[in-house]
């Protein structure tokens, strides 16, 4: 049997499924942090991979990541309603509920609300980079690879995001 080159075929079901397993969650989290929940990041991930399947003949495995990120971003931008980014949070209940005073709990809630607003007001790039690093635990280099930017750029974005968040959260309403 003629031995084809080692290049895997994206049109192969197993190869395609493995690519989905490898990339889907990161893409989903990326879309969520960048655009918020109102724009259905789950659906966009589905659409991106459907398009990959349709074009499987034309995309080699090495190019898959940039393909799905490009498609996903375009789909988002084409989304009919460009709603304001809305992130959700579940306020973690303090461990020993009864030990906290109502004043403390109120202050905590207000702190979280300021933080939520501040996160939503960051630029998309700053927010995505910052949250992927601090919440998802992705290393600087990993994020650089994901977004196709330099490691230095990642460091700068995270630092700037932190600076802005601190200003807005500590000083309260500006």
């Amino acid at each position, binding site marked *: 049997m003629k031995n084809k080159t080692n290049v895997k075929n994206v049109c192969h079901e197993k190869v395609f499924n493995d690519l989905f397993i490898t990339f889907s969650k990161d893409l989903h989290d990326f879309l969520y942090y960048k655009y918020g929940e109102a724009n259905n990041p789950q659906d966009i991930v589905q659409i991106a991979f459907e398009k990959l399947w349709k074009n499987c003949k034309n995309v080699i495995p090495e190019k898959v990541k940039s393909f799905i990120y490009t498609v996903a971003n375009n789909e988002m931008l084409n989304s009919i309603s460009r709603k304001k980014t809305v992130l959700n949070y579940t306020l973690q209940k303090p461990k020993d509920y009864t030990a906290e005073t109502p004043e403390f709990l109120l202050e905590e809630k207000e702190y979280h609300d300021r933080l939520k607003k501040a996160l939503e007001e960051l630029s998309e790039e700053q927010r995505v980079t910052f949250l992927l690093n601090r*919440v998802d635990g992705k290393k600087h280099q990993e994020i650089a690879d994901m977004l196709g930017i330099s490691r230095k750029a990642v460091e700068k974005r995270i630092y700037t995001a932190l600076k802005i968040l601190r200003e807005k959260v500590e000083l309260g309403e500006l």
Partner: protein
Amino acid sequence: MTNENKIKRWLADELSDSEREQFESTDEFKEIDRLMGAVKSFKAPEYNIEIELGKLTEQVVNTKKISLYNKLNPVWRIAAIFILVFIIGYFTYDNFSGFQGNQGWIAQSGEVYLPDSSSVILNAKSKVRFSDKKWQKERNIELNGEAFFRVKKGSTFNVKTPQGTVTVLGTEFGVKDWDNYYEVICYEGSVRVISDKNTVVLQPGSAYRVINGIDKNFTVSNKTEPDWIRGESSFKSVPLNFVIKELERQYEVQVKSTNIDLNQLFTGSFTNNNLEIALESITIPVNLKYEISKNKTVIRLEEN
């Protein structure tokens, strides 16, 4: 080192142990640490790769089927339809397992085992239908009424009822579909429910219900299987008329009521094994009285 550099290097995990210790004891760090802690509560929602892959596979397979059809030129498309119709016609008159006699519906009590040893338990007056032959490729089962499913991990498992479709990969859940009442409860694993109103994904302990066109999510606590499997019908904030309909099914009776508010919400349960006790359980909390006909087939309900 400037402050900015120090923070940047701390962010990149590049400080030496002593530098880090020193930085982390400052007041400034306390403030940053609080912020970093609070930020964690903005984590993206859980992304279930298995379920999403299942959804994608279904979608992609459908598109594949359609595009194959479109590639045929018009004459062949017509021929394709006729051939398909002929094959369907041929097989329904043949030994197509699961579609003989009673048109393939199974309505037995006790556990019904499916070809992959997943199982389904049917409640009163309920029935299921599925194809033995096709089970390997796709596990599709039709349900009329209410059933509790134990699904072994494998290909996508779909439960289709008039008001919706439930999709799972391997888990335990209950589906209830009667007139104007659609309910799915997840006991283990996770299920996706597609109904006319909405698409939701349920985790263990959560449930989704559509009553008279209004949908809501709610929780059920600490249950591994529905109560009716152990002979008890229970309800949480359900309009009374649905409770009565369940009684009718369980006991094969007909209930006639006069001047009763059938929309009032009922929370409670009744036994499936003793009609009188069951009637007490329903009537006492809502201040009604009942009368059983001589031949035990008709119940009259009215205000106390």
